[in-house]
């Protein structure tokens, strides 16, 4: 493939921990072939050298939390043929969206010595709330195999393989014994989008939903069952309000539980 034919890739960061960008850099063995197949034109986490747009593919990490973020994401959208969000923050608002249930000014007063320097929006919101998103890659962080699959599919002009079913499929395929049924550990696997390979249950802990809701989540039923087995309402709310707690399905379920409690 001649170098001028290589698609130009840009990677951007908003409010996030950089973990998804690191997952891209963690591709290790595949990174050299990736660099050969695409031109990495803008990726500050990897290199300070940048090339001007427009770009064929923009990967966006992080959520929108400032007025500048809002302007920047619109500019990025204009400059990108295909915009793909990577990770829980960009796709659902991230763990920082917990502030959406509270008064952000109280947090600012508690955390910062000089609150007057902080200019932030009231809410942390997903990229899709502001611009059209062509594809969303879930996870906190994203799964590097899925990231490579998406880029490979884009290069080859085919649909990427990102099954939207529950994490339970992945547990059962690998033979992991259900931690909820066999040990009573609360697990969001039946509500959560697959893609991680059912990592947490294989280490004997419950899924905490970092890939966000699966294709047709039924959180009310799982919550009712957890409550009936003695899990406290506050624990179920906390479980739903994790890294993807501001996603529509998890938010609606945790809000409902909170209303019932009041």
């Amino acid at each position, binding site marked *: 493939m001649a170098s001028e034919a290589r698609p130009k890739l840009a990677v951007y960061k908003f409010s996030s921990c950089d973990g998804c960008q690191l997952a891209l850099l963690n591709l290790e063995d595949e990174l050299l072939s990736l660099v050969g*197949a695409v031109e990495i034109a803008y990726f500050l986490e990897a290199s300070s050298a940048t090339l001007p747009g427009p770009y064929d593919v923009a990967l966006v990490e992080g959520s929108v939390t400032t007025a500048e973020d809002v302007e920047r994401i619109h500019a990025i959208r204009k400059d990108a043929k295909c915009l793909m969000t990577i990770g829980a923050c960009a796709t659902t608002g991230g763990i920082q969206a917990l502030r959406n249930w509270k008064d952000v000014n109280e947090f600012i007063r508690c955390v910062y010595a000089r609150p007057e320097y902080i200019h932030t929006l009231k809410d942390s919101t997903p990229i899709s709330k502001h611009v059209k998103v062509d594809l969303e890659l879930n996870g906190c962080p994203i799964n590097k195999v899925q990231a490579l699959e998406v880029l490979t599919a884009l290069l*080859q002009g085919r649909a990427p393989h990102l099954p939207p*079913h529950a994490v339970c*499929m992945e547990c059962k395929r690998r033979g992991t014994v259900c931690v909820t049924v066999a040990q009573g550990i609360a697990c969001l*696997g039946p509500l959560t989008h697959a893609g991680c390979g059912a990592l947490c249950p294989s280490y004997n802990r419950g899924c905490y939903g970092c890939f966000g809701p699966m*294709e047709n989540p039924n959180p009310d039923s799982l919550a009712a069952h957890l409550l009936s087995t003695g899990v406290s309402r506050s624990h179920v709310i906390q479980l739903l309000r994790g890294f993807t707690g501001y996603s529509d399905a998890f938010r609606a379920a945790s809000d409902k539980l909170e209303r019932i409690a009041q």
Partner: protein
Amino acid sequence: MSASLPRVSASVAMPKGSLQQVFDNLRAAGYTLVGPTVRDSAIVLDEIDGLDDLPQGWTDEQQPAHYRLKKAPDNQYFSYGVGPHSWKQFLHPSRLRLFSVEKNNGSWTIRPSQEPPPRYAFIGVRACDVAAIGIQDRVLIGSEFRDPHYAARREQVFVLAVNCSHSGATCFCASMKTGPKVTGGFDLALTELPDIFLVEIGSEAGAEVLGDVPWEAATAFDLGRASRVIQRAERQDGRHMLTDDLPDVLYENLESPQWDEVATRCLSCANCTLVCPTCFCTTVEDVSNLRATSAERIRVADSCFNRDFSHVHGGNSRPTIRSRYRQWLTHKLASWIDQFGTSGCVGCGRCITWCPVGIEITEEVNAIRAKGGK
């Protein structure tokens, strides 16, 4: 002691420790042993070496959405019910590479998967699971469209079955007429008594495995004790399914309000289909490298509870959880009979135990029957 081999269909008594010798003989004959063993707080199926790997002294407690591994009151080898795994994961693996393709000098070479199929001896197969293997045989190799991967594994399998001495609270094999006694489809079938194994010989291969194992012809006393053990298990079945009016009661109630009710509880997470020992659906995933010079086709377990499963050109034929649960239940208990001549349910109870919200197939059928007025 007898120097000759027992004849097929005979029952013999064997010291418990001699089961190790049976295992050794199977291994010497080239089999990989797979059987129950304790792992991850459950009794799972995995490769085993000897008697020490069996869950001796362990049992389980099962309820809807509830499984707990417990110390058994006795020190027997088989005092528990079926666990989260079933034999289909060895005969019909949940992930199987079918072939790979590679591009060299502009042309593609296709390489079928060359891995030789493993030769398994299944240790401790319960009656419901023997029936389940029989059902998968009909589905996967019982017609002109044979699954060669299943066939290659199935043809070599040695089945050492065990008659259940205990039934769990989610078991209903007696209703489905599949157990708790194994009545066919085995090479050897054990009944565990406190002092001996009573061994029924099911095939020439089974008799040969007993070659140098000490055995005696079973006495009437032993046979009586064994039959009481199995009767006790039958009485213990914790769930019941009325089958007399199946499949009609389901076909006549396809618009029952119960389907809406169960859809409020069903998570559509697919656990029931994946633990079911007869559910057989698969899909294929194609994986390619970045430069499009090599690719693989992998077959993976799929489920009718996944939306993609019923995605066809123009839309989805089962877009709601209600429609997917109804499809699963009516196929399992009704249209399976039209399609393959038997029910697709063997009464093992796995779908009840391993449903994360404890939906009971037996209760759903009862509710549909009650609401339908039949």
